[in-house]
């Protein structure tokens, strides 16, 4: 059934909103701070599970990581918000059919920095970011067990946001400001990739499925293993950037609130 939905090349037919992957798992990112202690995590969540699970998950996490109990409600709230956001899209329809986007990875997991770029078909509802990430780790011989999930998560995040964009009723307001800002950048690039791919499709008799040699490097995963010093320096910088960003966002929110009130 899934295959049929994805195979339907006709642009008219729409499908119910879901993660455009085989497993309907949504990416959840947690970044909470209690009394100067910061908890950051990213994982996938099955939105079909009852919300009770969230509480259990939060309790367990806090217990496992020996975090203060104050984290539990924050974590629950964070997850709940994100799951609810996803659920708000459910029931809406999104465009089916082939939509190839260029996904970009640029992430650091512990001491591993991985940059990558590849084409992803949003219409392929059988795609499997986890398997893809596992492949990368295997092929690049990345030992760090956290890299794979991180890659998969990054892909899911991007897919999620793309899927939200493709909701036919166009609820753009729902996209967070942050993502909008990022997507302003990313989307322009991805749209370029799409057009390039569309071009290929149109003149499929002439073009080749084999990429031009000079483009190979752009689509190649690049992995950098950092030393401990580099990691520390990077972390410090990221911390600073994050703080600046946060402040910026707060300011943004202030403006938004003022305008919305007015």
């Amino acid at each position, binding site marked *: 059934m899934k*295959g049929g939905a*994805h*195979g*339907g*090349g006709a642009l008219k037919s729409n499908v119910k909103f879901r993660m455009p992957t085989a497993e309907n798992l949504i990416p959840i990112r947690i970044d909470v701070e209690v009394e100067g202690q910061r908890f950051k995590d990213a994982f996938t969540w099955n939105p079909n599970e009852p919300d009770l699970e969230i509480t259990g998950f939060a309790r367990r996490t806090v217990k496992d990581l020996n975090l203060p109990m104050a984290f539990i409600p924050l974590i629950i709230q964070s997850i709940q918000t994100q799951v609810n956001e996803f659920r708000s899209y459910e029931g809406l329809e999104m465009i089916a059919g*082939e939509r*190839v986007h260029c996904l970009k990875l640029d992430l650091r997991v512990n001491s591993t920095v991985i940059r990558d770029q*590849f*084409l*992803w*078909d949003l219409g*392929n509802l*059988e*795609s*499997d970011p986890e*398997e*893809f990430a596992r*492949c*990368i780790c*295997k*092929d*690049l011989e990345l030992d760090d067990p956290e890299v794979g999930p991180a890659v998969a998560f990054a892909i899911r995040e991007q897919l999620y946001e793309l899927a939200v964009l493709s909701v036919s009723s166009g609820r753009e307001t729902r996209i967070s400001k942050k993502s909008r800002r990022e997507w302003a950048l990313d989307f322009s690039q991805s749209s370029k990739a799409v057009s390039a*791919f569309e071009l*290929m*499709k149109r003149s*499929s008799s002439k073009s*080749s*499925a*084999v*990429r*031009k*040699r000079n483009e*190979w*490097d752009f*689509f*190649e*995963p690049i992995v950098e293993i950092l030393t401990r010093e580099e990691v520390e320096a990077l972390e410090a910088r990221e911390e600073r950037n994050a703080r600046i960003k946060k402040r910026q966002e707060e300011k943004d929110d202030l403006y938004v609130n003022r305008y919305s009130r007015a």
Partner: protein
Amino acid sequence: MTEVVRIAPRGEEEGGSREGKPISDAAGSPVVAQVAAPLDHHTVKKEDGLPSSSPNLGAAVNKVTYRIPSYAGWFSWDKIHSIEQRALPEFFDGNSLSKTPKVYKEYRDFIVNRYREHPQRSLTYSEVRKMLVGDVNLIRKVFDCIEYWGLINNHTAIENKNQTAATDSAHASHMSGNIPPGIRIVYPCKIVHPKGQVPSNERPASISNLASHKDLFTGWSPMNLQAVPIEESIDRQASQSCSNCGMNGESKWFENKKKTGFILCEACFSAGDGYLKDDFTLAETTSESERNHLAWTKEEALRLLEAIEKHGENWDRVALHVGTKSKAECIMHFMKLPFGDQFCSGIMSLDALAASRSTDETIVKNTKVEQRDSKGGGEALELHDNEELLESIEDADGPPTKWRRLNPLADSSNPILAQVAFLSAMVGPRVAAATAQAALMAISEDDPVAAQFLSAVQPGHKDPFLPTTTSKDSSKADEEKKEDAVMRTEEHVQSSKTGEVETSSSKENLPSTTQIRAAIATAIGAVAANAKLLADQEERETEYLMATIIENQLKKLESKVQHFEELEHLLEVDHGHVERAQMQLESSVSLYVNHSRRSQHSFCRQSSLTWGDIHYGQQSLEACPGSKCSGLFFGTMIF
């Protein structure tokens, strides 16, 4: 897996086509595509020692054997198997624009080729996906499928290529002796040392080894001399075995420019995929004459002769009789058959010949008689000494006289003489003879010494030419010449066929330089004659064409005149019409005038004007110059 087992033999059938298609990746670098079965014996089903038909031209001289598991025997470069269709249905349901069988094939071929560039290492998905455009998930699916079927990363089966690559043939034969059942033997590159090009006119300079050694046809002759060359040719034939499939006896060869001695037969070349065809040259073109020699077996040659005897110059039937050769090949071969032509006139041997001739001419004459007798018995030549051979062949009634006429000169290594022979054959014997005469005359006019020699050449029946030369010679020379001429004529009665033969065969005791000059002159003469003929023909053609043109022009003019006449007639008719119309007009005008006069009278009567006034007005008007008509009009208008 039952299905797989069933499919395996099919893959074997497809062995040829599987490797048949050259595939290059984006950069156009050659991709080797050889397939063989895996080493693991338990998976091996049917693949046996069939020679794989494509060589590896990679950087390594050594062969690389690619193995695919026999359960992946369905794999074919040219086709998409139903297994693939089932495994990856999204490419084949036709629902997507970008997911087409073509794209799938591109993916698959690229991945497999990519792997085969470096079969020692395993190809990773991440490497592949950077080179392929498309949804990474889809590519992963394709990749997984191909890997699953062992078309790539089939590591267990990979054997160190050094083991399979055996450069020395002894090793190779050892290998093929006990091939593991799953391995296809790719013939190792056989290094054949490049043979020195055998010149096509390899005829010996001296007559001492004059057996018609090169041609297999003469193999029937009892002369033992032939044995060696035949062996040689067989040897060469054997050495020309295809480095890939080991076949020999092919007519066309493709030689690798980079690796000397690396030869492919035509089949392997056309089927070849893994190498650049540019690297190969068609050896056939470089050594065609050799090849034609090789290609004819003794039986074929004999059959050819038989056929010619039976059907004469009906080459279609001859070719039919020979069976294995085409018409053109038959003709070619027949032209190359030695009817002893090389005995007759090699310029290089002529001096020696002349010397010996002069010493024992009488003996020669005697043997000649013998010769004719023995010849009656059959074609079989006995072992003669060279002069005898020469004479016998001169006398022999070789099958077609047409070719015999060529012989005296055609054989020689001197290209000029060959040309002369060709030209003389073209213009015909009489013209050639005439031109030769003319040339000789000219030479003798230029050079009295040569004239002295040449005058001896002139046979008796060409006396009309002689006075010009003799006038410059001493009476003694004249006498000599007369004597000589008489002698020669006698000889020519026996042997001569054409003027060419005469000139060449009767000059034996002349210095060769003069002879060559004569020959050159003859050639030029022949060319001139030929040119004259051509020119004449052209002229006739031109005349004819001119006549046609003129005729056509005349016709054109005639028709034009006709048209003009018609036009004139039409004009005349028109003219008549116009005249008549004028007449009518005039009459009507006069009628009108009369009428108007009448009405004037009545008008005058009715009005108070006096007749005198009117009369006056009329008078004055009539005094005016002008036509009657206009005057009248004016007159009327005055009122």
